[in-house]
């Protein structure tokens, strides 16, 4: 993120330096103005005004800064650059492209280096979609650029008044060159800037009705999130948050993916960086990286930039939404973001709220999640931003402030469970504690696109799982042999749902993505076993015989086969044969 236009402002001087928060005096500044601190011109942002004293959070390491060094106000707020060149980029928390930083300063991140968020010298082929004399409004699409396999639509910035177009011409342009001029003389470039802390305007917010298909059985099948919805994944460390987030980034059927690694591990970001370019979209066959923007601010990068990274990400997501795309945004992890707020707040010596978090934690979280949604854009198209936030509760305790404040806002809760991950049940999402409030609004879609039976099958599966957890309590006390026969079968059916349907191997080439129709077929097969099992038991077959049916043992293998149809048919046929034989001998 580069601030080029500097207004002439009275310069200030540094008064105090203590970590990432510094104090300046003699500076004419407003809240959230971007300032340049010290001789090295480190980037910072005004976060408090206290009489003469201006308190600034600095986005780079402050070691060596001395009182008396100059501080200069740019007069601009922290903004991102939006335009062709965003896709496939990898940024730090303040939109500096990491690849460019490597070229400028080597393998380690030094400070005082700025780099533009999108390349200035690259030329893009601009195709106009309107002509001179046409009336345009803020948000109107005036042309397009083939950026990757994604078409980047060029819009009138929301803060431009609009009017009649005086001239517009196709051709090869850099992002800063004027592609169109309005009657009143306003020049429009492909690049626009937008302050990260301000939501981009929309026409109207709508209620979501289409699920975001992720290829993950427990998510699509049991706890779906809608396009434009919000979800939280809280879980202790080691329970699979990051893998789940990465699976969503890889396979969700959004058109654009923004992935924010906020205060996470460097090596895990490397894994994302090396793996994503090799992955292909299961539908288009194009590299997944072409629709992806990554923001990597690892835990040892400056804390203030970590605070900003979440806003940088959501602003980019909104920009693509305004073009009429479905965008999904993953933030891993929002707890690290909240902790960055806490750290800055404690350095400001603010009165702490719960567990030392600032009192405005809940407000910041809800402002962030509220920037999601299915909308009618200013141009009249439909676009969405779905937000999926990971939460890392200390000690896995969901009663802590970040989890609780998040749950008050989001509509989908995927509760990760350390117990499940310890027994290598992945994804280790607890099916009893999780929920989705979108089930009703999405049920029409499932009826129409999957099968009218699907909603019934899902309800049935949830009932079996619920029943199993009750039965397990009894088994813990008296042993499984003491259960009535029908209930021994329920336990077996529940085991199949867990091991066949819910468990999914993210590292298996086939099982990593499971289409909705395959999910339906798998669940239907389990239901077929259950129906025949109860019927056989009623006909006098013993549970032990029913449980030792051989054919069902092959069901898990279906997961690992691409063209599973013949195999599944075979299993169902031999299962039927086995049941027929059992019943005839009973």
């Amino acid at each position, binding site marked *: 993120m580069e601030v080029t236009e500097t207004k002439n402002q009275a310069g200030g001087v540094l008064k105090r*330096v203590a970590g990432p928060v510094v104090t300046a005096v003699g500076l004419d500044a407003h809240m959230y103005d971007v300032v340049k601190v010290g001789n090295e011109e480190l980037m910072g942002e005004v976060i408090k005004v206290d009489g003469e004293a201006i308190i600034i959070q600095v986005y780079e390491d402050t070691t060596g800064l001395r009182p008396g060094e100059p501080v200069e106000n740019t007069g601009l707020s922290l903004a991102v650059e939006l335009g062709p060149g965003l896709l496939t980029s990898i940024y730090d928390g303040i939109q500096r492209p990491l690849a460019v*930083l490597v070229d400028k300063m080597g393998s380690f991140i030094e400070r005082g280096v700025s780099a533009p968020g999108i390349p200035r010298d690259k030329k893009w082929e601009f195709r106009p979609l309107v002509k001179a004399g046409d009336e345009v409004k803020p948000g109107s699409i005036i042309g397009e650029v083939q950026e990757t396999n994604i078409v980047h639509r060029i819009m009138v910035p929301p803060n431009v008044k609009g009017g009649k177009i005086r001239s517009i011409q196709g051709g090869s342009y850099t992002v800063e060159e004027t592609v169109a001029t309005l009657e009143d003389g306003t020049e429009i470039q492909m690049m626009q800037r937008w302050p990260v802390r301000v939501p981009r305007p929309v026409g109207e917010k709508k209620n979501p009705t289409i699920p975001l298909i992720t290829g993950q059985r427990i998510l699509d099948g049991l706890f779906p999130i809608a396009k434009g919805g919000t979800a939280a994944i809280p879980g202790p*460390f080691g329970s699979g948050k990051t893998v789940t987030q990465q699976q969503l980034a890889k396979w969700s059927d959004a058109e654009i993916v923004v992935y924010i690694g906020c205060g996470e591990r460097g*090596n895990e970001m*490397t*894994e994302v960086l090396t793996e994503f370019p090799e992955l292909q979209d299961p539908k288009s066959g194009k590299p997944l990286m072409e629709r992806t923007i990554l923001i990597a601010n690892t835990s040892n990068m400056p804390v203030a930039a970590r605070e900003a990274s979440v806003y940088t990400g959501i602003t980019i997501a909104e920009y693509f939404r305004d073009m009429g795309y479905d965008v999904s945004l993953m933030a891993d992890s929002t707890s690290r973001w909240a902790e960055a707020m806490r750290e800055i707040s*404690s350095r400001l010596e603010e009165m702490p709220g719960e567990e030392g978090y600032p009192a405005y934690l809940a407000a910041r979280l809800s402002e962030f999640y509220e920037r999601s949604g299915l909308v009618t854009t200013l141009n009249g198209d439909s676009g969405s931003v779905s937000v999926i936030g990971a939460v890392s509760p*200390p000690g896995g305790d969901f009663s802590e402030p970040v989890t609780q404040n998040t749950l008050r806002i989001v509509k989908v809760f995927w509760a990760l469970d350390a117990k499940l991950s310890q027994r290598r049940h992945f994804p280790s999402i607890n099916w009893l504690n999780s929920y989705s409030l979108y089930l009703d609004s999405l049920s029409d879609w499932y009826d129409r696109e999957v099968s009218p039976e699907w909603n019934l099958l899902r309800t049935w599966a949830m009932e079996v799982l619920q029943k199993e957890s009750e039965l397990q309590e009894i088994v813990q006390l008296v*042993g499984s042999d003491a259960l009535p026969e029908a209930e021994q079968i329920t336990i077996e059916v529940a085991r199949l749902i867990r091991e066949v349907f819910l468990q999914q191997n993210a590292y298996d080439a086939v099982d990593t993505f499971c289409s909705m129709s395959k999910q339906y077929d798998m669940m239907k097969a389990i239901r077929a076993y259950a129906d025949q099992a109860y019927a056989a038991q009623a006909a006098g077959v013993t549970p032990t015989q029913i449980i030792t049916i051989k054919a069902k*043992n092959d069901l898990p293998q279906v997961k690992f086969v691409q063209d599973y149809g013949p195999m599944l048919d075979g299993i169902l046929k031999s299962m039927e044969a086995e049941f027929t034989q059992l019943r005839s001998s009973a």
Partner: protein
Amino acid sequence: MKEYRTINRIAGPLLFVQKTEPIGYGELVNITLADGSTKRGQVLDTSDELVVVQVFETTAGIGRDSGVRFTGEAIKMPVGREMLGRILSGGGKPIDGGPEIVPEKRLDITGAAINPYARGSPEDFIQTGISTIDGTNTLVRGQKLPIFSAAGLPHNNIALQIARQAKVPGSTEEFAVVFAAMGITKEEANAFMQDFERTGALERAVVFLNLADDPAVERTITPRLALTTAEYLAFELGMHVLVILTDMTNYCEALRQIGAAREEVPGRRGYPGYMYTDLASIYERAGIIKGGKGSVTQIPILTMPGDDITHPIPDLTGYITEGQIVVSRELHRKGIYPPINVLPSLSRLMNLGIGEGHTREDHKKVSDQLYAAYAEGNDLRGLVAIVGKDALSERDRMFLEFADLFEGKFVRQGIDEDRTIGEGTLDLGWNLLATLPVEQLSRIDRELIEKYHPKFRAK
């Protein structure tokens, strides 16, 4: 360089110096006492009126008459190849009676963050010879994998065994060990030193010792000195460096002590709110640089107060490191060495370093199956305590026995037993799995079963 005699207040490890010229944040400070001896410190807060200095040694003897000099630069560590085989204090001074180190370079000890884009992918399997690590929680080069232990458990023996046996099969590249002790007892330090000498590992090691009776505040720089050295050996000399940091709990206590002295608003259990960021600035200094030769692999050791894994120290650590090896008191009581409980243990980078081309194609699935079967057997133990063994179904009894076998054969091994990954660990896993009926091995595909299962191999 101007000397100030304007110390106004001394509180714990902090000095408050008045009326100075502009002083840089983070600068190194030299303090001269009345008797001529010197101490070192660092600037924590600087403003026109007051500079706060944190002293790395005891403040005993410092008074308002002591002189303070600000050096104008951040703390730097002299580094060089000669450091191999040397023993240094927690503050980086030689304590083995040898000569001063002639530096090849002087490096800033805070160390800049590696640009995530410049990181290489950690995927070289490190064979430690310990089945519970190699088989089920694999360590790879460039990883940071802590040992979560508790008072009275043999974590030091495990760390030593890893340091002794760790190798990348088939690799002949140069390696080194950097060992940093923070607040451990002389006795523990001796055990480490004797083992290093016995095995000849000392030649390839740089040792930093901050013992229990050394100043606590010094502990806050010891790991940074060690990592600066490790980065030099790895990224400039191209060596593969294993860094052992013990005990991180003492480090965190020192952080809390400084936080309290500065009268900061405390976070959870009195630890400073920035402890996550501070720990990250240590742990994240593990890794590989794309296109570079060397690597830094970290094994921090921490003792969980009250065996509590949700305590802020293990909790924040677990959120930064790439997994954890959990040492269990229960297994230790059963007399099993190494008492590693695989259930809460995890290696996040495991999948990058195993499978075909790294270890063996069946590694991942065998590991998953062992986990699942052991977890099931372990759960049943609770049930047996209530209803007795007779009430169990035949299937349950098999899993119960599997859990005992797993602990007795797979987990338990000799302190000098160095198992290879293929025949030593994975085949052992298969032999244990063979006690279960084949159809219970739902995590492994048919093909692999037919290739590796002892029942089929025998044919």
